């Protein structure tokens, strides 16, 4: 193993992957608006429920985790003197 100078510049393909990914998101979102699917739960009757659930759920997860970090984070050697 060797250490090189850290390079924080993202590779050129990273942007292209993001564009393709967001295009895929748009396609699956549109799909839900035009095609019927099976429904088992009252929530599923809402259009674009799954995309909204995925985005809002993860957003809440990240935001709540940031609050949790304020409560539970300690220095790395917190348990070292046990």
């Amino acid at each position, binding site marked *: 193993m060797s*250490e090189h100078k850290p390079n924080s510049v993202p590779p050129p393909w990273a942007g292209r992957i993001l564009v393709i990914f967001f295009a895929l998101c748009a396609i699956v979102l549109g799909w*839900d608006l035009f095609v019927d*699917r*099976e429904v088992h*739960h009252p929530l599923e009757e809402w259009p674009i429920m799954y995309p909204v*659930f995925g985005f809002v759920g*993860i957003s809440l997860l*990240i935001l709540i985790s940031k609050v*949790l970090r304020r409560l539970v*984070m300690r220095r790395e050697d917190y348990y070292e003197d046990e």
Partner: protein
Amino acid sequence: MSSVPPFLIFLAGALVVPFLRGMPVVRAAWLLMIPIVGALNVMGIQEGYQLQFEFLGYTLTPVRADRLSLLFGYLFHLGAFISIVYSLHLKDGDRPTLQHTSAVVYAGSALGAVFAGDFITLFVFWELLAVSSVFLIWARRSPRAVRSGLRYLLVHVVSGVTLLAGAMVHAHQTGSLEFGLMELEGLAAWLIFLAFGVKAAFPLLHSWLIDAYPEATPTGTVFLCAFTTKVAVYALARGFAGTDILIYVGAVMACFPIFYAVIENDLRRTLGYSMINQIGFMVCGIGVGTHLAINGAVSHAFNDVLFKGLLFMAMGAVMHMTGKTKASELGGLYKTMPKTAILCIVGALSISAVPLFNAFVSKSMIMSALLYEHHYWIWPVMLFASAGVVEHAGIKIPYFAFFAHDSGIRTREPPGNMLVAMGIAAAACLAIGIWPDLLYGILPHGGEAAEYEPYTYTHILTQIQLLCFAIGAVAAFHLWKIYPAEIPSVNLDADWVYRRAAVKVTRWTGAVVSGVDRAFRGTVLKTVDRTLRGAFRAHGPKGILARTWPAGSMVLWVSILLAAFLFLQFF
């Protein structure tokens, strides 16, 4: 039946391993033979077979083979084979004899537990699991690993003792030691349930997993992730299928770790939280208890050994090559470890339940069972947990290890055996995802009630929508630069209670008791001292009671007394 008890092959195989020291090729061949011979043996065991004998008036059943135990039997042979392949490179400095021997005993113990038909046999293998696996933690030899291993051993021994206590009460009440389906009523059932809960990492009883797994050796963690918790899942499926409380316990297990996983810096510890999250799905399915739900739970346990093992193997490979597992110290490794990166991504796609990967065909059975049984409040909770998996295991693990900012570390691919093991696990993840009948064919429940078709139009579309927008949220938070940064730190969890609070309470109690004791003894000593001084003053050489009085003095006092009496006579 021409087969032998499955655990015997492993325990006998482990006895030989110490004698193969210094013969790495022979030892590798021997180690690989153990799960292969074991698998051939277990395939020869017929459903319904039982090995029984009488002992002290009780019937013991060291081997009971039905579809449930056989499924876990196949799984543990596969898990043992992959883990052994992964650990073949161990050199003298890694304590290979210790690690290989304890790993093989550990795998054999897991097999013994899932084929146990009575509580005594289960207890023996339950404890042997703990005792054999702790050496995979101690083999790391760091002071932290030693302390962590001690805590791990203590928790699991207590779990075993609780199981034994429950089994004794159960035997006293029912006159039988048979391990079968139970109602969660009475002391015996609750003790047994608690013992299973410790090993299954129920909420607040889970800290041993987060504490110990990341401290084990890179190869040891792969073994650990395959057996202990899966034995507990098996035990719950066998003993408490359909117990309502498990639905809620499972939902909590699936949810709370994903918050910790977001902020955890150690990627192997992140996988520990991920493991509890996945066990939550299994526990929830066991709680629902229908044939479809049980099939979903055990098939997810099967798949978890593969995809979680693959992720642990990938992080183990990174640790083996760089000595680091912290997100804040890694990044950019795809440049020098591209094969490991691709295999890690396969594991990430599998655990995220992407169509064509194995979790897609197992987790959805549990989700569908929740809907079919009208658990309408639990279903969205589990859907949230499902999206959360994408964040921490689907993106965080491969992203921070192999991509993200370039850490500057330049290394190379891990040893060939590690790549082969990861390749086998990745191939299995894909094979089950593409041909789910490979797994569905060996599930415990058949028939119409357990029939399931994962590849429906609705399931594929909704899962892709959920995953895409969950990933989209992570990407957006990264672009907006509000995603939690990787910070070298530890996060307080339930283990704080016994690692910090209990220590502080013990010290405080000790100080109070010591103070009271000191004050009491001081007071008593002072009183004794004062009494002695008083006595000394009166009776000592110069004391008033020690004086020698002259005869004249006596005559004087007698005269005074007589005069007093005379005087009193006048009244």
